[in-house]
């Protein structure tokens, strides 16, 4: 039996800087350094003592290059979750926690930085990771098209009503409109605009697709014991799962027929619930990676919050908003309305919620699920919890 890492590590500091695409004040590594220092100041931690670095999604900032700016004394752990999309967002915390739990590092910075002037468009980078002649031959060159085909199957074959996508997007905008740091601040979703926006790839119109932004996010993970001596209340990593199963993956759209329209989370969600002893009913708030609306819906289904049959009862605008809804989702606005730095902003909001720092607080929230990029060949999710 694997030694449990549940709750043994905690996020002690966070930093997040986000800009409209093309407006970052510094090149990518500069923005990242600034954000890491923010996280250290938040925690009251000397940046020179960070000894581990973890990222995901083909981040280009090799940790060794950060050492001169941070004053790093020694790197004892660095790694990145495989995969070009956001599938590794939550799994990055698993890599970091494994290092701390086994004594291979003491203070690990989990980060993702993306300034498109340096790294190019995110969608293009993700697709470059996956592109092959089989896809190109069919005119498929973008994540939107792959996710659109899966969404079409979800609606047309599995009978999920497409209207639930509108409910989810609307909830993200409701929260983003109330978050002064969000790109959609002051701007709730205009439903007629949503319904008539230009088509991207059927069944997706413009507002079914996430934004792309410049910025960086950084979260300092240390042992829970150590976090208790730092400035902010620790937020513990209660569990994390990453991976995939037979019949799902980079398979030229030949995934198992029953899995094809899912977001790929069935095995990781099962392991996450087993590992933590929690169930969807125990989750107080969800930060849900939505690259596309239907994949967000499929992710909630995969994690067991609803089924193909009752999805419309659960994914309702009123149910998804804080503080009154039963399943508040993307309380800072998510990738649709807060902004999109490859999903790292969702992790930041999870910590803010559990510290009581969110602009859309869920009263008494003790647990928060972070679901990483849905539909990716490998995916991951994590549960964070208040220190008790």
């Amino acid at each position, binding site marked *: 039996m694997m030694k449990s890492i549940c709750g043994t590590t905690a996020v002690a500091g966070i930093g997040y800087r986000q800009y409209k695409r093309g407006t970052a004040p510094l090149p990518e590594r500069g923005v990242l350094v600034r954000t890491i220092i923010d996280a250290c100041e938040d925690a009251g931690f000397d940046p020179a003592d960070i000894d581990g670095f973890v990222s995901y999604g083909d981040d280009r900032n090799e940790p060794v290059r950060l050492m001169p700016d941070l004053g790093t004394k020694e790197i004892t752990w660095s790694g990145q979750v495989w995969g070009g999309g956001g599938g590794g967002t939550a799994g990055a915390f698993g890599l970091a926690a494994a290092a701390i739990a086994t004594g291979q590092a003491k203070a690990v910075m989990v980060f993702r930085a993306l300034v498109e002037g340096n790294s190019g468009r995110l969608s293009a980078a993700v697709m470059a990771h996956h592109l092959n002649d089989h896809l190109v031959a*069919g005119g498929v060159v973008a994540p939107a098209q792959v996710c659109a085909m899966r969404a079409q199957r979800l609606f047309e074959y599995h009978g999920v009503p497409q209207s639930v996508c509108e409910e989810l997007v609307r909830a993200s905008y409701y929260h983003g409109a109330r978050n002064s740091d969000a790109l959609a601040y002051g701007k709730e979703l205009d439903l007629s605009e949503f319904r008539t926006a*230009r*088509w*991207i*790839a059927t*069944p997706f119109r413009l507002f079914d697709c996430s934004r792309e932004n410049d910025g960086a996010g950084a979260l300092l993970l240390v042992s829970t014991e150590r976090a208790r001596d730092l400035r902010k209340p620790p937020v513990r990593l209660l569990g994390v799962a990453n991976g995939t199963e037979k019949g799902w993956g980079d398979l*030229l*759209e030949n995934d198992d027929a029953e899995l094809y329209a899912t977001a790929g989370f069935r095995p990781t969600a099962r392991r996450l619930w087993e590992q933590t002893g929690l169930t969807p009913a125990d989750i107080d708030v969800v930060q849900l990676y939505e690259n596309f609306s239907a994949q967000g819906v499929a992710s909630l289904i995969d994690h067991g919050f609803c089924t193909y049959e009752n999805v419309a009862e659960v994914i309702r605008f009123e149910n998804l908003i804080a503080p009154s809804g039963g399943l508040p989702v993307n309380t800072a606005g998510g990738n649709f309305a807060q902004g999109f730095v490859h999903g790292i902003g969702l992790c930041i909001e999870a910590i803010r919620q559990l510290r009581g720092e969110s602009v859309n607080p869920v009263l008494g929230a003790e647990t928060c699920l972070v679901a990483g990029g849905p539909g990716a060949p490998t995916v991951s999710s994590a549960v964070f919890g208040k220190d008790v």
Partner: protein
Amino acid sequence: MVQTVTGPLGAEGRYWQALAEGHLELPQCTGCGRWHWPAVWRCGACGSWEHRWREVALSGAIFTWTHTWHPFGGTEGIDKPFVTLLVSLAEVPIRLLGILEGPEDGVKIGAAVIGRIDRTPFGDHFVPAIRWRLSQ
């Protein structure tokens, strides 16, 4: 020697050669009879390293589809909007992507299609490709 325009070449070199010769061939494990797609060097089910490439008819049913409207980079040479079909082949348990030609009315999951071999422009290159057409 088969060369790809994008991405690495896996075990499917014969697929591209066959398309260039004007027909569809797909790999079947000689050990256990399984069809593998993507192509593999080793059958993960029975361990065999031997696969026989067999000619397969370009006919099947729509598994899913999307209508592309946005001018994504790389689709400059394709008239928009266009429909991409993912088709479950009738003869073997494999799905193949291709662009729809001809009438679009009647595109739905389960609809029968037949195909022919063509090529799709991508940048300065052309990639061997399947064109699907609704059967009725």
